[in-house]
């Protein structure tokens, strides 16, 4: 390579580097491919999931012949075929409080390619505790974000995710890609940016994306650059903080109360019976832009406004539906807590409903 500034020294740094990619999904796949191509010496990949058909539009490392196989096994095999020099480490399980510190300690740099707040806050906190820089990536709808967090600079407090959002948002407060869908190329762009920033951090070339949060809008093809700064209101993050934080549920008491509420998850046959009972109120909690439209009478209050509009709900049994039956569980729990009525959630959501109804016609 004869690119000015990118000589044998930079290549040498890459070959010595150890990078952990947490999440082998829409962000992790492209990040891995470019880091393997760049000749990063050791790459750890962590993901508990198996390849499913709904992954393929955005996880181009995988194909139809590999459905049901572990993502990390397939990804490691392809990485070795691309560049046999790279040492791959496979972690076929999800990151959690028991394994995060020990695994992250083995790496120089972490790429957060996860798709949920529990993992994102845990990665943030462990990296802060162990003083490891990490490249953050995330998507929401048509937008994606990238930033370099916790990169040390002499005399300056390194910025990390809790400076932006000190408290982890409630579980299920925000729909995931797997639920609402995403244009496959969007995580591809963000994951590729994460690899670019990792290469700059390792080689020391250029100015990494520190102290800035970059947000890309697919629809307008614009990047929105925000200068971020430290927030003094955040807690001290140390081993004790990590061990005593509950990453699985929101820290807010009202939210954790919701987690304990038992609601009835019903299948499509039970739903069809309930639907014909005029005493049961059917509530769709999908956002207004979500498809498909439904052909039976129902009310719609999007999840994003449910808490404020709770008073509009009638005092009778309520059956909640959404796309895949994830948000509806949380919505039914909220409704039962606040309205003290019977609350049901359609398991598998409208995806399951249309599968059954269409197959019987």
């Amino acid at each position, binding site marked *: 390579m004869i690119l000015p500034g990118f000589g044998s020294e930079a290549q040498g740094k890459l070959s010595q580097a150890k990078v952990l990619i947490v*999440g082998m*999904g*829409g*962000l*992790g796949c492209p990040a891995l491919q470019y880091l393997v191509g760049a000749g990063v010496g050791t790459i750890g990949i962590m993901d508990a999931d198996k390849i499913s058909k709904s992954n393929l539009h955005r996880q181009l490392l995988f194909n139809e012949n590999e459905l049901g196989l572990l993502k990390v096994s397939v990804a490691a095999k392809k990485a070795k075929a691309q560049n046999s020099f790279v040492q791959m480490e496979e972690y076929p399980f999800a990151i959690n409080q028991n394994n995060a510190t020990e695994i992250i300690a083995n790496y120089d740099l972490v790429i957060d*390619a*996860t*798709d*949920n*707040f529990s993992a*994102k806050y845990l990665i943030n906190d462990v990296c802060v505790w162990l003083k490891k820089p990490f490249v953050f*990536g*995330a*998507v*929401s*709808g048509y*937008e*994606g*974000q990238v930033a370099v967090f916790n990169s040390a600079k002499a005399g300056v407090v390194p910025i990390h995710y809790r400076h*932006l*959002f000190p*408290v982890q*948002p409630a579980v299920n*407060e*925000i*729909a*995931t*890609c797997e639920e609402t869908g*995403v244009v496959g190329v969007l*995580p591809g762009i963000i994951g590729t940016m994460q690899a670019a920033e990792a290469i700059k951090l390792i080689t020391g070339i250029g100015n990494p994306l520190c102290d800035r*949060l970059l*947000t890309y*809008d697919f629809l307008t093809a614009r990047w*929105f*650059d*925000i*200068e*971020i*700064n430290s*927030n*003094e*209101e955040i807690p001290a993050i140390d081993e004790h903080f990590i061990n005593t934080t509950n990453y699985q549920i929101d820290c807010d008491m009202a939210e954790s109360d919701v987690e304990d509420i038992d609601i009835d998850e019903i299948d499509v046959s039970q739903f069809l019976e309930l639907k014909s009972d005029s005493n049961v109120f059917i509530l769709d909690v999908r*956002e*207004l*832009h979500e498809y498909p439209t439904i052909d039976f009478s129902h009310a719609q209050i*999007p999840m*994003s*406004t449910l*808490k*404020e509009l709770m008073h509009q709900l009638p005092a009778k049994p309520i059956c909640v539906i959404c796309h895949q039956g994830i948000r509806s569980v949380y919505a039914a729990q909220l409704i039962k807590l606040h309205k003290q009525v019977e609350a049901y959630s359609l398991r598998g959501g409208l995806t399951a409903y249309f599968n059954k109804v269409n197959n019987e016609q």
Partner: protein
Amino acid sequence: MEIQVIFFGSIIDITNTNQIMINDCIDTQSLMNELIAQFPSIGNKKYFVAVNQKMIQTNTLLKTGDTVALMPPFSGG
């Protein structure tokens, strides 16, 4: 005095637009009061505020032509 307000992520689900113009708000606190009056659900959302592409932590004076962004957390991947 006109201020441009830009929305991101899940906040667009509430506003159904990614930007609006707001008049006569002298600072970010009065601007947020006005926004929450127009879109009550924003009041329950987590977000940080940036003025002219710089994150702010405290109430900040605004002037004509300023751009205020409301940035919620993103978690998808």
